[in-house]
């Protein structure tokens, strides 16, 4: 293999890890966002236990994605996390709080205790989703980079209309995904209520999707360049629209798993779209496109990329295998028992 191929593969693999994260942690972040809509303690416990066995493993996709970014593109890891310092510190706080709140919320009786952790869980889920979306928006919009990739960022400059829009789009996307997941995991009256949440969240997502797409075409024409050059790529946005349109249909037909897979596919396609628009850039330089960080200039040595690929080839099939198995063990409606949250 030629050298450049490893860079391209790792660009894809980091994308795969982040897509895995979005699809998997996306639904439990979405459940978090919807958590306060559940009335009463029992319903909230059902929400928590619907994600109980999974959220922790889902979050590992982010941790591994971070590790892979560090190993494959250390400059991107360094620039992004130091440049978006406050945003990422806040994201980390949200994730710390969120994990703890899921675990401890039901360990004590008492309205104040449970109420506090219910709020902590829900707010941290929404804020984390928002920050992830804002980060994504910034990476595309671009930040001023110095010649040695250094970037002195500040939070206020990172929160501008475009990135807030991408943030809200991700929140809406995760809420939609979480609502569909809950339809799959609940039964009875609660299920009937959760069903009514699917449509508004889909609509919210579509609205944000359209706004972000228009803003991208207007302000970031370079993202549309690959599609102009290779019209065949229009298949991706077309499929993504079909996948979204398929969700209400499957819900209506009572095929919840298919609806969930459809939503997962829509999210994956959205990220593919993003990846195509970005490639080979990882962080766009707004001051001078020539300074952008790419899969080639920000990467580790060929030897490391090669070693890491072997590692991923050994490890990831195992991960996918047992993750699939574990999801199967816990498939079906949530039932509370003595070991539940």
């Amino acid at each position, binding site marked *: 293999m030629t050298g450049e191929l490893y860079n391209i593969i790792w660009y894809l693999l980091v994308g795969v890890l982040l897509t895995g994260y979005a699809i998997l942690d996306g639904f439990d972040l979405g459940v978090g966002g919807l958590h306060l809509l559940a009335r009463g303690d029992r319903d909230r416990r059902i929400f928590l236990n619907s994600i*109980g*066995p*999974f959220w*922790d*493993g889902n*979050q*590992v996709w*982010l*941790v*591994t994605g*971070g*590790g*892979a970014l*560090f*190993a*494959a593109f*250390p*400059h991107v*890891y*360094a620039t*992004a*996390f*130091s440049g978006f*310092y*406050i945003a*990422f510190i806040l994201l*980390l*706080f949200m*994730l710390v709080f969120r*994990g*703890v709140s899921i*675990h*401890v919320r039901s*360990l*004590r009786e008492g309205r104040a205790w449970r109420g506090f952790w219910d709020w902590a869980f829900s707010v941290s889920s929404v804020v984390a989703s928002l920050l992830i979306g804002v980060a994504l928006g910034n990476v595309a919009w671009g930040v001023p980079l110095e*010649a*040695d*990739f*250094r*970037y*002195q*960022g500040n939070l206020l400059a990172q929160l501008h209309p475009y990135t807030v829009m991408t943030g809200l789009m991700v929140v809406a996307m995760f809420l939609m995904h979480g609502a569909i997941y809950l339809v799959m995991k609940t039964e009875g009256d609660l299920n009937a209520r959760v069903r009514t949440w699917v449509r508004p969240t889909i609509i919210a997502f579509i609205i944000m999707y359209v706004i972000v797409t228009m803003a991208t075409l207007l302000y970031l024409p370079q993202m549309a360049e690959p599609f102009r050059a290779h019209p065949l790529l229009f298949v991706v946005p077309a499929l993504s629209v079909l996948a979204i349109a398929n969700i209400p249909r499957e819900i209506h037909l009572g095929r919840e798993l298919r609806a969930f897979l459809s939503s997962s596919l829509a999210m994956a396609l959205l990220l593919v779209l993003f990846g195509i628009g970005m490639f080979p850039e990882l962080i766009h330089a707004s001051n001078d496109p020539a300074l952008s960080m790419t899969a080639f*200039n920000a990467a*580790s*040595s060929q*030897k*490391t990329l090669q*070693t*890491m690929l072997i*590692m991923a080839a050994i*490890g*990831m099939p195992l*991960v996918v295998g*047992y*993750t699939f198995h*574990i999801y199967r*063990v*816990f498939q079906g409606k949530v039932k509370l*028992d*003595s070991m539940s949250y």
Partner: protein
Amino acid sequence: MDLVLLSRIQFALTIGFHYFYPPLSIGLGLVLVLMEGMYLKTRDPLYHQLTRFWVRIFGLIFAFGVGSGIVMEFEFGTNWAAYSRFVGDIFGSPLAAEGIFAFFLESGFLALLLFGWDRISERMHFFATCMVALGAHFSAIWIIVANSWMQTPTAYHIVDTAVGPRAEITSFWGAVLNPSTLDRLAHTLMGAWQAGAFFVISVAAYYLLKRQHVAFARASMKVAFVVAAVASLGQLVSGHSSAVTVYEHQPTKLAAMEGIYATGKSADLTVIGWVDEANKQVIGIKIPGLLSVLTGGSTDTVIRGLDEWPAADRPPVQLTFQTYHVMVAIGMALILLACGGGLLAWRGVLFKHRWLLWIMVVAVLLPQAANQLGWATAEVGRQPWIVYGLMRTADGVSDTVSAGNVLFSLILFTLIYVGLFVVFIALLDQKVRKGPLDSDLPRKQEARR
């Protein structure tokens, strides 16, 4: 305030808080494997109850460990960007490997461990327990690989790139198996086993003092004392061989650990003492020549003193010296407690004397303290280097982040971690008081099967 200092304080705080949990998960993970294994072998319902109870405690510890651990994965980027750029080619791989081989395994099978009791067979559950424990150990392996490379960097060369020089790997296995990896791995893992085992002993001793769950407590102790004794004795070996590695590869650290200023043969080993840094001497109880004997096998072994290096290349001496010596003292106490206590428990004497049980209750703090102090020795003793001899800590910091921002995050971390620690202790206390439940015993049809 100074950016480098603030960044260092923040890293020390976040890793110190985090490192309260992983040793417990690693140690308790091993104990769980033994307990559930005993149940499958003996079919004694008591061991089933043991496993269920300790799994609940494990779940709590794990949640806090994961929460505080996710911060660590990203803190190299947020606060040590220059370091990340310089070593990413080498240091990033073990972190990624930890995700792929350890965290996925641990968190995936944790689901079965915590929630799978009625959904999978007993054997499958035991397998899940083993995988969780294995995952916790794997995670230690990769972190020790990464940190050991910072202590004794090997298998790299410095390459000039368009954006400055950086260390690039020349051999993956050479970097993984750098000179200090194996010793430090053994030392860290056994430290974790000690933490887990003494944690179980402490809770069990508390029940015995309260005269509650007596059979449960004794059975817990039996398993835990075995682990504690093996680990505590093993620490003698791994501790010794770690120190020899430090002597061979990090002479400034060894000199600081023992407060040696003048290079020479027949160096003394201080048992307890105080470094008089102004006069370059150690005041305390010393064993003449023993340091030379322990490191090189004879009194002729030359120990290099701090005077050989300019002041700017020396680590903080007093802090390195004291953290190291207190750790060693605790290590010795743990051997006594593990072996002596285990013997007394076996003879039944332990259960007759309340003061002995009280010692066992309090002993839970010792391995935790030793683990923290040991890491402090390793990290403070490496200073002023972030990668020993290769990059200075001050050069590794994220200089695009303002000191004000770091101060902000440091204050936030402090507040939140204090709050979380209080919550953790309160919930742990609650779970311990609640004790093992009747529902933790195997169900009848299962017992017959």
